[in-house]
């Protein structure tokens, strides 16, 4: 399962022109961003952002409103193109120009609005745009089996039938379907935008478990979240953006709630919590 997680020889010379603020993550991260900048007209959204997303780890991307979280996500997802900077996928330099480029690499994004068609059922949504065909017609049996296996693999068992329209699902179930849809395609990196916003306690629990399961499957996961409880529950690594700059990026143990808030609001933190265990 972990084919891509093996230590790549620190593939030469690359990218180290920009000095990284990231802690040395040991093995080559699945996706490495160096010096990503992006502006929209006169507004500079990102200033030379570095970010590492290692496989088998959950990286939380934190930041206040307007910090550039969404822009950074869209740059990785191929919706926006960075003006400057480099991206390395498994150590190889890559350019992601369109969402299809991202999908080809194995990058899937679960947006906050989930992008599900309410009138279609779970199977139809999970295969939307990539339907399986047989003799030119839809192969419903094969799609239903595969969707069922993926959902079972993620322990999404609360839906009554995988043939029910998405409109009849609860918020947590919809999120689960969106995540399952994202991981179905041999994805290696899944980015989730505020996955627990607008969810109740039990449903939040379900989604957090789901995220941990993705990690266990060896995927790189990036979670964008305002909710520090969630961050400290599922993340292995934390990256904090403030006003378009990456102000902190380290293992979770290097942070506590207060220091994350400090970084988000002021860009620095005087607290040193390096050795303090965080539950």
């Amino acid at each position: 399962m972990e084919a891509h997680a093996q230590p790549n020889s620190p593939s030469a010379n690359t990218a180290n022109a920009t000095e990284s603020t990231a802690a040395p993550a040991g093995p080559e991260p699945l996706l490495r961003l160096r010096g990503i900048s992006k502006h929209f007209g006169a507004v500079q959204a990102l200033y030379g952002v570095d970010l590492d997303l290692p496989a088998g780890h959950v990286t939380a991307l934190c930041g206040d409103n307007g910090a550039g979280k969404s822009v950074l996500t869209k740059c990785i997802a191929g919706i926006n193109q960075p003006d400057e900077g480099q991206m390395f996928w498994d150590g190889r330099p890559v350019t992601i120009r369109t969402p299809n480029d991202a999908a080809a690499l194995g990058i899937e994004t679960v947006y906050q609005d989930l992008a599900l068609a309410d009138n279609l059922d779970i199977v139809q949504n999970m295969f939307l745009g990539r339907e399986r065909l047989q003799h030119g017609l839809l192969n419903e049996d094969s799609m239903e089996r595969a969707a069922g296996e993926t959902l079972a693999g993620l322990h999404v068992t609360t839906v009554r039938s995988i043939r029910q329209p998405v409109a009849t699902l609860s918020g947590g179930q919809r999120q689960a379907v969106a995540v399952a849809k994202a991981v179905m395609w041999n994805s290696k990196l899944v980015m989730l935008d505020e996955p627990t916003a607008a969810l109740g306690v039990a449903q939040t629990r379900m989604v957090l478990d789901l995220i941990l399961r993705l990690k266990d499957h060896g995927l790189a996961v990036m979670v964008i979240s305002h909710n520090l409880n969630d961050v400290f529950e599922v993340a292995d690594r934390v990256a904090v953006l403030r006003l378009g700059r990456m102000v902190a990026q380290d293992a979770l143990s290097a942070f506590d709630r207060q220091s994350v808030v400090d970084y988000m609001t002021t860009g620095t933190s005087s607290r040193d919590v390096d050795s303090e265990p965080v539950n």
Partner: protein
Amino acid sequence: MTAINPQNVPDAAIAAEAETAPDLTAAAVDVIPPEIVAQSLGEYLRAWLARVRGGDAGLLPVLVALVAVTIVFTAVSPRHVFLSAGNLVNLFDQSAVFIVLAMGEGFVLLLGEIDLSIGYVAAIGGIVTAQLVQPNFNWPWPAAMAAGLLACAGIGFIQGTIITRLGIPAFVVTLAGYLFWFGVMIIILGPAGQVGITSALVPGQVALYGIVYAYIAPTIAWLGLAVILLTLANILWRRDSGRRRSGLVAPPVGLTIAKIVLAAIAGIAVVFICNLNRGVILPVVGVPWVVPLLLITLVLWTVLLERTQFGRHMYAVGGNPEASRRAGINVSRVRTMAFVLCSMTAGLAGIIYTSQLGGVTTNIAGGSLVLYAVAAAVIGGTSLFGGRGRVIHGLLGGLVIGAIYNGLYLLGLPIQYQLIVTGLVLLAAVSVDSLSRRNRGGALVKG
């Protein structure tokens, strides 16, 4: 390869999972389609009743409307002539135009769009076909029909392209098309203002006129029906029982049988009625050719919408265009194609109408035809708001509109009352659509 592979999930990981509490919040359980959760016919009926109460009644309203209209008009028509074989066959012929138009309009309604031009686009389809079987062209009828359909498809492509590429609302573009094609229609009809297809000397005209006025021999009709029903039963039975065997979501056995029995009853009723003698002086029997033509259209478009990738994408675009775009679906292409299919199907309706009237004149009421088509589709159960609709909705809704049209005519009510009644029926159907949408809770109202 890091596919989620359930077989490889270590058991320890599973054991470590906290039991996820089933979340009962916000799930509107009563709108789950009953056929996917029911294990038996009784359970199906209970789930179905729950769904009807939840606001999604499926085909129920249109079937109730059909029965109600039949009872009312049978009761009030002079000598109960409404249910006579002659009138029922007449009703099938009249409804055919509404049915096919409604099937066409269904494609754009499915995307939450509307096409107001199809009345006159249908007329153009009829005129092109009729002109090509005039003695000076003398095309064989299949070529003439193909040309009529292609012309209409071209019109749909132009309108659809303007709507999707320039981002102009369909309402405006097709309203402009309504006037434009009305004008074009008058031009191509020429100074005579009409084109006829009633000559018995031109083979193409005989064939076109025969769509409505030539009949299938009774024995052939019974044989054809037997073949169709056996094929349908075979397909339905094998699909459903195969899915049940392999543990996929499938309707209960009783429902599969009920579907086959219902189709058999409907088919036998139609063939039986058409094979009764309805002649006044000479015996007249047989199924008009328009009936199998409707059936072919129904099957073809149903397969396209419900069994192909393109059809799936149409539903997706109708339900959530943004999600479709992100899923890599070419939303503009799907929307343009919906207008192409709509206009092309309208062209077929125009050809049937031409056959029924024996030709086309400038008096054709393209405006009210459009409204009848929208009314028929919505009465049948297609949503005006996109994302919900089937081809069979056009068939059933078209029958209701045809029955109202026919019944009011039998009563000798002048056109003004027909218009008023049809307007009220349309309003009622749209109200049912809007109200059922509201009852279905947050998820749908938002989308």
